[in-house]
């Protein structure tokens, strides 16, 4: 896991509502963008559905490294589907995850914001790095790592702003604790970046058209 799925009961009702509203604004904006572009392209919808299913299926696989790691591949969603469809995909993946207990229902809003930051940053980094290097492995790997760093920063920011119910420590104490957690997450992020780099390089070799914006 390169980020934490927050569970129900972690935040107060006020912050649950606030983060849900923020996520709904994001999702509403994505839907609005699709509608003004008149993107009722059936193929893109079908592709986005397959990306959703593939990323959720891959999340179910445990990689036997460091005792078992599960990958979310949210940055890869950003690279393959772009930020608009990516927002909708992470929302659906979070609902599916909440349904099987990986993240709370009330915390879907906060989790969507964390995932969205990973999607958008990975997408922009991947596109931006095109001028720096032509290696798909490095572009995707760096974009994933940067995306996951941002995801961790957003997660820490959300927790610091909302606070955890029952925890009475100062912001500095919470920040110290979360930094330790972020350090562990970054270790997993390196694995995810390495694997995403290999995935994108492999896709680029076998089906380069997929990387040329089939969905986005």
């Amino acid at each position, binding site marked *: 896991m390169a980020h934490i799925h927050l569970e129900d009961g972690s935040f107060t009702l006020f912050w649950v509502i606030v983060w849900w509203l923020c996520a709904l604004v994001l999702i509403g904006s994505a839907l609005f963008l699709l509608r003004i572009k008149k993107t009722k392209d059936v193929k893109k919808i079908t592709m986005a559905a397959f990306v959703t299913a593939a990323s*959720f299926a891959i999340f179910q696989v445990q990689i036997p*490294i460091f005792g078992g790691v599960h990958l979310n591949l949210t940055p890869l969603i950003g690279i393959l589907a772009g930020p608009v469809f990516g927002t*909708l995909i992470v929302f659906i993946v979070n609902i599916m995850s909440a349904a099987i207990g990986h993240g709370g229902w009330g915390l879907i809003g906060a989790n969507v914001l964390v995932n969205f930051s990973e999607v958008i940053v990975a997408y922009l980094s991947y596109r931006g790095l095109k001028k720096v290097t032509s290696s798909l492995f490095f572009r995707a790997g760096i974009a994933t790592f940067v995306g996951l760093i941002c995801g961790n920063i957003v997660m820490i920011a959300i927790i610091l702003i909302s606070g955890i119910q029952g925890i009475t420590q100062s912001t500095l104490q919470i920040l110290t604790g979360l930094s330790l957690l972020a350090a562990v997450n970054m270790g997993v992020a390196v694995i995810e970046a390495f694997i995403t*780099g290999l995935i994108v390089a492999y896709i680029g070799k076998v089906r380069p058209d997929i990387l040329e914006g089939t969905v986005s």
Partner: protein
Amino acid sequence: MPTTTFSEHIPDLDLITWYAENNKSVFAFMSPWTKFAILTLLVVLVTVLHSIILLISIYVAVICIYLIAGLPAKKLILWYTLPILFVFSLIGILVWGEPGFPLISLKIFGLTAILTDKGVLIAISLLIKALTMVTFSLFILMTTRYSYLATVIERIFPAPLDQIFLLSYRFLFLTISMTAAMLKAVCSRGGGVIYSIRMQGKIFAEVFALVFIRSFDRAERVHKAMIARGYKGHFSMNNEVPAPSQYGMISIVIFSIIVIAILIASQLKWGLNIL
């Protein structure tokens, strides 16, 4: 009973769907709207409640409902692994240093970390909240038929979100079985053995990349087949979802009143020691 499982601690979607389609308990005939209304109220309830006794009571009630529905208890315990990991990876760090009666004291890099009774109570409280929601979510999934779930999704979400959701839910089983087949092929050729992180990472990356590539291939084929059958971007569900029954409505109203009362009491700090 069909199962496609990659690891024992992740809920098996094939098994969940089998229970959803074959469950004959009273809950299988309950309106999905009633279940989702109770789920929403339960989320609010576990968010505002702090009393360990009340939380344990709710958890026991949810477990009883799960068992009465004839759902697998052993599997549930295995499926608790990741939610427990999520709770402790976050709370396990933050509970140290909470004020209260010290239970454990550790010295790490010259710093003293103290675990108090209040810290333990916070961890237990959040764990019970998480497990209550996991159990109830799985109960809903395992007692609600696909056709009902799909209709609810279509009615709740705007297009194209509902279309992506419905299609991905259908594709999910296809993708999971495809992933399982590829992993089986890798393992049968000795790919499951750990040579090195680089080698292991490469093997899994190729499997995952193939999942995406084959998903895209299938998406293109499915897209063409759907277009040929008249699909124009709207995947409509023609199933009728039963409305909440009289008892269902009464349950929702009573539960809503309880949740609102607890919400008001917690806001006005009434009965703080109980809630």
